[in-house]
């Protein structure tokens, strides 16, 4: 567990994490989050869920970083810990260069960073009208009077494609897609620099999902907001994101520009994941890499490379030495001892 998962020091100028001279709005360095596993009547601590283990990435202004991976790999925990909805076990998060600590006032944080949840219904207050839900962050900040907030609600509604006559309806009167628009409008209420979206379109039907994806693209083009977009849907991520980080069992195994990761994945897990997605082309001949077995438990992650129990390329060294997340081809970082061996797998 002592191996650092980064090639060079983050922020040392250049393009360690895939971007030229641009400064990131959000920097996450060596983020760790463990949850205690308790047992018995006295709730004795018997172990730890290694939900997020030493995760580092950056998100740039006006761009979207996609965080993908299978259920339980730690995507949501990463997002929630970055947002300080969960206290990190260790690691550093910087928003516009400023370190967020336990002492950071949540209200200050909320001005620059917002969160959109998968289930818009659960995350809206059912007793407040749509307008009040959307401007709740303003009220908490004590920003503006009722009339000003109402005006802002109207502005936000127009922004996300909702109608004025819907302002005073309750969340229950909206469809799933409309509720997600309300959730997005609320996240944008304070014009944040970064929005973390956790599976925001996963509960929506495809026809409605496309509306929300187009909306997100348009909003980003208009406001230069940065998105951390968490999703298990690799097609959606390809469509929306500039850069992609692939997680497996609490770790980022590959991160790079979208085109690099999708067109030339270097990590065996990324390769398998991409090859497993069915594409809507009948008769498409694809070399599917079918992974054996299930995800190991994050309570006792495999020693060495965490992917080795399912990796078709695993060798003896994979059980002994954890691979570093390091640069292979310029901007793309990969955590595999044999990443450059064979690219013909996909």
């Amino acid at each position: 567990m002592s191996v650092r998962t980064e090639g060079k020091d983050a922020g040392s100028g250049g393009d360690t994490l895939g971007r030229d001279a641009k400064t990131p709005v959000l920097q996450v360095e060596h983020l760790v989050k463990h949850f205690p596993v308790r047992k018995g009547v006295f709730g004795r601590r018997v172990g730890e869920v290694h939900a997020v283990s030493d995760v580092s990435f950056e998100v740039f202004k006006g761009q979207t970083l996609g965080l993908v991976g299978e259920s339980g790999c730690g995507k949501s925990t990463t997002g929630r810990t970055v947002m300080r909805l969960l206290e990190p076990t260790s690691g550093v998060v910087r928003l516009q260069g400023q370190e967020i600590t336990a002492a950071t006032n949540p209200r200050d944080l909320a001005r620059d960073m917002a969160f959109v949840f998968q289930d818009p219904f659960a995350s809206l207050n059912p007793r407040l009208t749509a307008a009040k839900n959307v401007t709740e962050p303003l009220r908490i900040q004590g920003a503006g009077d009722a009339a000003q907030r109402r005006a802002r609600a109207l502005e936000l509604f127009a922004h996300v494609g909702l109608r004025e006559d819907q302002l005073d309806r309750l969340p229950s009167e909206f469809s799933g897609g409309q509720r997600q628009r309300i959730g997005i409008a609320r996240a944008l209420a304070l014009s944040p620099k970064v929005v973390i979206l956790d599976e925001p379109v996963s509960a929506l039907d495809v026809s409605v999902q496309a509306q929300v994806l187009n909306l997100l693209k348009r909003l980003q083009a208009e406001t230069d907001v940065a998105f951390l977009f968490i999703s298990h849907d690799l097609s959606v991520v390809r469509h929306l994101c500039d850069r992609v980080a692939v997680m497996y069992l609490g770790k980022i195994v590959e991160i790079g520009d979208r085109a690099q990761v999708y067109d030339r994945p270097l990590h065996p897990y990324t390769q398998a994941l991409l090859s497993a997605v069915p594409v809507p082309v009948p008769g498409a001949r694809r070399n599917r890499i079918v992974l054996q077995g299930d995800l190991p438990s994050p309570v006792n992650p495999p020693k060495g490379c965490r992917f080795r129990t399912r990796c078709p390329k695993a060798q003896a060294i994979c059980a002994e030495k954890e691979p570093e997340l390091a640069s292979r081809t310029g901007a793309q970082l990969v955590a595999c001892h044999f990443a450059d061996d064979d690219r013909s797998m996909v």
Partner: protein
Amino acid sequence: MVAVAPVLDISDLTVEFDTPEGTVRAVDHVSYSVDAGETLAVVGETGCGKSVTVLAALGLLGAGRIVSGAVTFGGADLLDMPAKKRRRLLGHDLTMVFQNPMTALNPVMTVGRQVAETLLVHEPKMSRGTARDRAIELLAMVGVPQPDVRYNQYPHEFSGGMCQRVVIAMAIANKPRLIVADEPTTAVDVTIQAQLLDLLRVAREETGAAVVMITHDLGVVAEVAERVAVMYAGRVVEMAPVEQIFRSPRHPYTVGLLSCLPRLDRDVSELIPIPGAPPDLRDVARGCPFEPRCEMSAARSACQNTRPPLMPADPNSVSACHFVDEVESWARARRGNVEEAA
């Protein structure tokens, strides 16, 4: 489509539910059939009636009411069949795989025993030992590791994907003639989905069964199906061979579904969403149910006033659109407009 009778034939099925807010017509004159060795995919968005159609057809509907229609299985009338006889078919000749494997598994019985029981119910004369051996073979076949050890474990000791494998083992145990799989991979991860789809394909090949695969995922459709039925608001709006559905869809809704898909295999300059949302089934438009969202209709009165019947669109396909002949050129123009704007 030759002289052989289909394994399952649903014709003109209509199902309604009474709710406090009025009557919901969940299935509205639906017809489709599936032949031995063939996979028919039924695709559509949430609530369009995919599940209710098969539940009603197999006599598994709880609250709803079958208003009209006929369903035959291997020529025998399933709707008029005595419940006892129908129950004997279920689990043997005619099996189901649901989204949540726990609905099919007994939490307090070992996994192996459940598979063995499935065999024994079908063949009461089989010895316990033979049933056990066969069950272990089946577990091995569906890819359960260490099947002899796993035989004695309970469902909660299995992952979701592994439980679904067991359900598939039970579904194929008695060489069924029909397997109905209702969103069998919706709850699992994509690497597990790949395993399960492979398994279902092998199962079909081994048993020669007909398969009805219900899904909302067009990628899954392209992968497994020979034929596709597209449902919208309780109706089949288009049915065609799989290549044709993807290459030249003949209903505006199918066109819309395909062009709002983000793609893994290539960059899409812009998604073209279908405006609006699927209708509340208590309040479906009087004419064509798709009319409120249909950009091809341009508010024509036929669309607003008359239900389009499902009619042959060409020798291979049927479509429920008054202006089916316009669909191809409209779809091309629509795609062109967006690419120009981009």
